[in-house]
């Protein structure tokens, strides 16, 4: 209703005691009884799609170029004698790293790729990445929706896992503890340590 309503109409509304209301973005209402007038305001929040991955040193929701190195210095008497804990490396403690994947575009594919087994630079002398086992436990420092599973690494290949999403959001985290299985007696040497000797695992999070 508005100012253009004639006197006769206004009289009828008053008689019937019908509340008078109108709606727009500027508006006015006249009449007797309860009268209301409304205006509207629209709201829009745009959330871009993103995916974030962290393994060991990192900054939440930001790039961090630090690449950590997990090191096992095996005493001579322990070579080939079974599981051996890391002696250095990892942002939490030796062999223990923070791991997190966050995304808001639905299911995330998370992969770990190596160029080949760890080498000491001598042809034929290698340690398989299968010997670098890892286990995931909850990381209270990185609150998340789900535990981020650790990988079984593959020499010269890619291990992959699919991370589910809740309401379009993936937020998985864990502490990954790396252990050298140390199942075999291998030739003396420093395995890895350089990119050429396949020291590096590349973790990649992607959304379709």
């Amino acid at each position: 209703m508005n100012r253009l309503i004639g006197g006769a109409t206004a009289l009828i509304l008053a008689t019937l005691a019908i509340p008078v209301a109108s709606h727009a973005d500027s508006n006015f209402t006249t009449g007797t009884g309860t009268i209301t007038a409304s205006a509207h305001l629209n709201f829009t929040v745009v959330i871009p799609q993103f995916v974030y991955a962290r393994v060991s040193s990192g900054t939440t929701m930001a790039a961090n170029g630090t690449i950590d190195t997990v090191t096992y210095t095996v005493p001579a008497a322990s070579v080939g004698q079974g599981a051996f804990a890391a002696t250095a490396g990892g942002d939490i403690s030796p062999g223990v790293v923070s791991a997190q994947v966050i995304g808001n575009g639905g299911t995330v594919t998370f992969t770990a790729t190596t160029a080949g087994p760890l080498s000491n630079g001598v042809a034929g002398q290698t340690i398989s990445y299968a010997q670098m086992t890892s286990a995931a436990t909850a990381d209270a420092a990185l609150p998340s929706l789900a535990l981020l599973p650790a990988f079984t690494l593959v020499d010269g290949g890619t291990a992959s896992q699919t991370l589910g999403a809740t309401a379009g959001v993936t937020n998985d985290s864990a502490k990954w503890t790396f252990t050298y299985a140390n199942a075999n007696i291998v030739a003396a040497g420093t395995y890895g340590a350089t990119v050429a000797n396949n020291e590096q695992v590349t973790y990649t999070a992607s959304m379709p």
Partner: protein
Amino acid sequence: MKTRTMQDHAHIRLVRAGRHRRGVIAMAAALVGVGGPAEAWILTMKAAPREIYVQVGAGTYTGGNYATSTGSGRTFKKTSGGKPGVNTTIDTVSVTVPAASVGTGTTQQMTSNSAVADSFYDGYATCNPPTEVYVGAWSQEPAGQTGVATLTVTSPANLTSGADTIPFSQISWTSTANGDTTADVAAGTFNGGSVALASIAANTWVEDCLTFTFKNSAIVAAGTYTGQAVYTVSQP
């Protein structure tokens, strides 16, 4: 409703008395307003047949503004012949959250497509768009009537993007106006229901400028989330 400074009290008394002795009052109000500090204002209107008006962002007045006023307190001087109109343009308040900030809890400033700076009360440059959105409402009553109108805002529970949602309670607002020390329209946060913004005395115009922020407290799915708030003035 207003900051009760001594100067403001003086204004209130002058305006009320002015209905009976307009010549004397106009002079006194002008003296108070000249060179004075910024102050809360009371935008009075003449008694008239029962009518209410609300404007959020875009609005329409035909035939000029409602009145002319004097002084920094915008004391009513005389009507200008302007009449309220219907305007169906709905303005939009929006924000695009940077990808690296999604869900970090860093409050995001929102802006709007509103270009409304001036009040239809007297043409005063009340707001600073597009960050600020003008909100104004008034109630007129015949002489002797003292009914109090209310201004409220109602929101749905969520902004939506398909099946994904963001609670409307993630959006808050502050309220201010150029030269006004005390807001007429309350600051607040949407609650998925109704929020009281102002009580409007008979023959009074209230207005302020709202600046909105997005709380950004949770990671949500990518998308464009939309929702609409309804501002309603009601005179019982």
